[in-house]
């Protein structure tokens, strides 16, 4: 007798084997070896996730209840695979070329990357898959219970509901662990999981061998051969076959739709896929696998009906029949077959769904909840992996909850068909995506929503038992037209066929109608072209001859690259040339070539060719990639212009530094010169003072001589004092210290004071316009007078004319007052004009000047302090100085600040 513990150990050992195989395959794949892991055989075997515990156990149950009907579940997929050239080939090509990660991804990217559609498909898939996962949990727990109850005869208590629930919980936990370990170990851009696929292939072999073994045992071991088995069939309750054509066709259609639309099938068929040739092999190998899986179903069912006591659950015949006939080894094998069917389905479905949930719900939410531009790529990987792990736990948790809530209803196949009908709602949108360029997002949305709603009302909610018998009898809201299983009085149909008919047909009609009425966005149109024409133009590299390219598409792309105005101008020009001044130009080959050249100018020839080729349907880069390229090049342009600006800035800084350095060097030279000049200036009076005081120390001096010498000494020391005063004054001014005593004053008074102090009245003839000088200003009067004195004194000293004249004119210029002092002398030679404001810059004989040569330098500093300036007027006849001073001291400085 097989004990329950032995069974648990066997199951654990089997799971351990799966772990080892998956781990080994992952390791081999990461080393790049083991090509057979990616062979057509592995591909075909991995497709067998279609055959779940539902088909393993439930098919026999179905056959025992309704005869041949179970075949439809296998005939539908057979049709699809025999017709692989139509749909699967295109699906796989698009999936590979565009790195599609799930069916939601496919639908959403075909319809212009619509995230709403992706979410909708994800939810639909979740709603369709959850009961299915519950179904797997149920079959595994029931099969455990069979063994537990078999050993119960040997004195152990029989299982009750809580034992089943505990088992289901542990199975769900174990599956979650396995899926997380191998499904989210790494984040491959292709979403491929070598370890999982290899483990699935192994499971495919196990379940096939198990079912065949039971079948062979039943046919040859129990019945005594094929002929006898056929006789048993003829004598069984299902001997007569009287199908309803609508149900037969409906179920075949449903299973055909399911194999295309089921998330787990999409995962193994398209996402985990590596070589297009595998599909051609699978076109016969997978139907063969299905044939083998269904070959012995009916014999097992009829023999079970004959051998087992009445009331035995036909859904478990595969298991109970060998047990009944004391074939315990076979029973354990059958148990493992059912176990592997269930686990492989749950693992792949959980991977597929978690990918969809994380890619289309969690990550977009996470990204939108974050401040823009703050993402680091490492961040996102962690978010994706974590969200997938949580999603896997959530999905299995949902399945477990569903299992507990529905209490493990007995008809396995009913739940499976409900699931199928749910995911089949994607079919119209999917086929439209592949074959009809006119399909729009709004159409897909409308069709999916309507289909989803009708499926819920007519099939899913009644199946869950959410509608009471009253609702089923009297209709929603008491309206008899809205009876969930007989909408609008269509009551002659089987509930399943009724639901498929309504949901799929309303779905399709809405999809078509809304698509016809709405206008797709440019992105949708681009994607539509590249999806529908997935096989076009693999050999069309000789020029743009095919007419698939559309002007709008070209315009959209050109605008992105050249900017709106330039692109529109280009298109308008071409339209005018083609004689269509109001519309878009026809995409003639010549125009497309012209466009390519234009684009090549901004993105480079290769990219331009690829982009035009893309719109032309030639290449297999997605529009997203292209837009990324366009954005990238725009960014690159921006980046390079930033770099340019930076280097410009650097050059400017360098220039400024050079200038500063030159200035410093010049200043240092100037300082040295200044020091030597100061010492020289100090030395001359000191020399005369010393020599004359030496003379005076000698004896025999006449009083007249003494007086003369002491006068010279006095004069020289006065000159020294003046020089030192000036130096002091200058250093105070230059260092910006020294107080200004501002006051309101009148310019005429200031000039009067200056003329008087300079003592110029005798020597110079002054030409003044005293009324024009009558200007009031706010400044430091003493300092300004000092400047005036200096200028007037200089005129007196240096004017070489016979009768020296000085013209003083004052006027207002803006906020400034300009005072020109122009004499009638020879002026200053042009070469020396630049030097006059420098310190010690005496142009003529020093003695004649009798000053230290600091006057104009001081004037310049004073004027700078007063917010004005003193300049030499070069274009006058004689020497001319212009003094500019603000009318109101402070106002200019404020402005300058």
């Amino acid at each position, binding site marked *: 007798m097989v004990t329950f513990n032995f069974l648990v150990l066997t199951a654990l050992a089997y799971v351990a084997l799966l772990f080892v195989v998956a781990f080994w395959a992952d390791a081999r794949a990461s080393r790049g070896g083991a090509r057979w892991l990616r062979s057509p055989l592995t591909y075909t075997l991995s497709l067998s996730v279609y055959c779940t515990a539902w088909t393993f156990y439930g098919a026999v149950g179905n056959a025992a209840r309704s*005869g*041949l009907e179970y*075949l439809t579940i296998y*005939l539908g997929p*057979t*049709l*699809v*695979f*025999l*017709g*692989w*050239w*139509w749909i699967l080939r295109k699906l796989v090509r698009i999936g590979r070329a565009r790195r599609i990660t799930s069916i939601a991804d496919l639908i959403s990217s075909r319809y212009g990357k619509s995230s709403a559609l992706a979410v909708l498909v994800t939810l639909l898939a979740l709603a369709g898959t959850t009961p299915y996962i519950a179904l797997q949990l149920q079959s595994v727990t029931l099969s455990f219970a069979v063994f537990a109850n078999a050993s119960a005869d040997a004195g152990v208590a029989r299982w009750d509901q809580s034992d089943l629930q505990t088992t289901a919980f542990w199975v769900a936990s174990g599956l979650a662990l396995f899926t997380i370990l191998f499904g989210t170990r790494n984040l491959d851009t292709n979403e491929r999981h070598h370890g999982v696929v290899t483990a699935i292939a192994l499971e495919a072999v196990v379940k096939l061998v198990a079912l065949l073994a039971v079948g062979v045992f039943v046919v040859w071991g129990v019945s005594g051969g094929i002929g006898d088995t*056929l006789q048993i*069939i*003829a004598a*069984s309750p*299902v*001997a*007569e*076959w*009287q*199908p*309803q*054509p609508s149900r*037969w*066709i409906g179920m*075949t259609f449903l299973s055909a739709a399911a194999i295309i639309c089921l998330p787990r099938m999409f995962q193994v068929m398209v996402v985990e896929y590596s070589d297009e*040739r595998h599909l*051609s*092999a699978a*076109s*016969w190998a997978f*139907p*063969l696998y299905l*044939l083998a899986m269904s*070959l012995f179903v*009916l014999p097992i069912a009829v023999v079970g009906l004959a051998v087992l006591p009445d009331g035995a659950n036909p859904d478990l015949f595969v298991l109970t029949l060998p047990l009944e006939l004391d074939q315990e080894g076979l029973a354990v094998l059958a148990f493992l077959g059912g176990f592997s069917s269930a686990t492989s389905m749950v693992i792949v479905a959980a991977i597929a769904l978690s990918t969809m949930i994380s890619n289309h719900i969690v990550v977009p939410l996470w990204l939108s909840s974050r401040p823009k531009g703050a993402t680091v790529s490492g961040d996102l990987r962690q978010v994706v992996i974590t969200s997938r792990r949580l999603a896997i736990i959530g999905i299995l948790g949902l399945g477990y909850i569903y299992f507990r809530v529905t209490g493990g209803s007995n008809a396995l196949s009913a739940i499976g068909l409900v699931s199928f009908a749910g995911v089949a709602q994607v079919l119209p949108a999917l086929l439209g995506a592949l074959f009809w360029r006119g399909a729009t997002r709004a159409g897909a949305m409308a069709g999916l929503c309507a289909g989803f709603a009708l499926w819920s009302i007519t099939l899913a909610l009644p199946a869950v038992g959410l509608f009471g018998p009253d609702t089923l009898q009297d209709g929603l809201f008491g309206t008899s037209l809205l009876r969930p299983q007989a909408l609008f009085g269509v009551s002659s149909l089987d509930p399943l066929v009724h639901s498929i008919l309504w949901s799929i047909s309303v779905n399709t009609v809405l999809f078509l109608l809304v698509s016809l009425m709405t206008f797709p966005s440019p992105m949708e149109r681009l994607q539509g072209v590249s999806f529908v024409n997935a*096989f*076009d133009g*693999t*050999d*069309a590299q*000789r*020029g743009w*001859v*095919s*007419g698939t390219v559309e002007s709008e598409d070209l315009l959209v792309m050109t605008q992105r690259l050249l900017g709106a105005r330039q692109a529109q101008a280009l298109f308008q020009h071409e339209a005018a040339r083609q004689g269509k001044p109001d519309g878009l130009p026809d995409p003639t080959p010549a125009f497309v070539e012209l466009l390519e050249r234009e684009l090549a100018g901004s993105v480079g020839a290769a990219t331009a060719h690829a982009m035009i080729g893309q719109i032309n349907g030639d290449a297999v880069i997605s529009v997203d990639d292209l837009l990324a390229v366009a954005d990238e090049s725009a960014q690159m342009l921006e980046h390079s212009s930033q770099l340019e600006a930076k280097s410009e800035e650097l050059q400017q800084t360098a220039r400024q530094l050079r200038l500063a350095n030159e200035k410093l060097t010049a200043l240092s030279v100037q300082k040295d010169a200044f020091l030597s000049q100061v010492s020289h200036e100090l030395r001359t009076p000191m020399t005369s003072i010393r020599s004359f005081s030496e003379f005076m120390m000698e004896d025999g001096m006449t009083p007249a001589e003494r007086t003369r010498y002491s006068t010279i000494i006095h004069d020289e020391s006065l000159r020294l004092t003046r020089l030192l005063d000036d130096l002091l004054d200058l250093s105070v001014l230059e260092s910006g210290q020294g107080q200004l005593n501002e006051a309101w004053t009148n310019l005429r008074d200031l000039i009067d004071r200056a003329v008087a102090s300079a003592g110029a009245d005798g020597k110079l003839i002054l030409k003044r316009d005293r009324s024009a000088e009558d200007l009031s200003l706010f400044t430091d009067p003493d300092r300004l007078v000092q400047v005036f004195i200096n200028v007037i004194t200089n005129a007196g000293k240096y004017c070489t004319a016979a009768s020296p004249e000085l013209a003083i004119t004052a006027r207002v210029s803006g906020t400034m007052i300009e005072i020109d002092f122009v004499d009638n002398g020879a002026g200053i030679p042009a070469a020396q004009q630049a030097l006059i404001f420098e310190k010690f810059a005496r142009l003529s004989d020093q003695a004649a000047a009798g000053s230290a040569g600091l006057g104009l330098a001081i004037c310049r500093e004073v004027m700078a302090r007063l917010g004005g300036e003193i300049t030499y007027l070069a274009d006058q006849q004689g020497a001319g100085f212009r003094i500019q001073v603000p009318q109101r001291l402070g106002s200019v400085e404020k402005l300058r600040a």
Partner: protein
Amino acid sequence: MTGPSRRVGTPLFLERGVYRRRRLIDAAKLLPFLAMALFLIPAWLSSGNDGAPGQTSAHLIYFFAAWLLLIAVALWLSHALHRSEGADTSEEDTPPVGPAE
């Protein structure tokens, strides 16, 4: 428009290998329709409205025979397509209209 465009260098008639491959593809496309006929029509014939109910065992044999036949054809097509792969570089769904048939 200049009508269905013929690619530069495409001959008027295809060479034998390419022609064969095109016909193989046609066959592969037709196969599911044969399968539909084989799988769905018996459901009508055996529906109880106007005739006697069918025998389950006989139909079981019929379905598996038809199934095997279809698998055999698919196997042959798959191999033949694989062999002829080099013949036609164009993987288009629909060959250019007009020439080359």
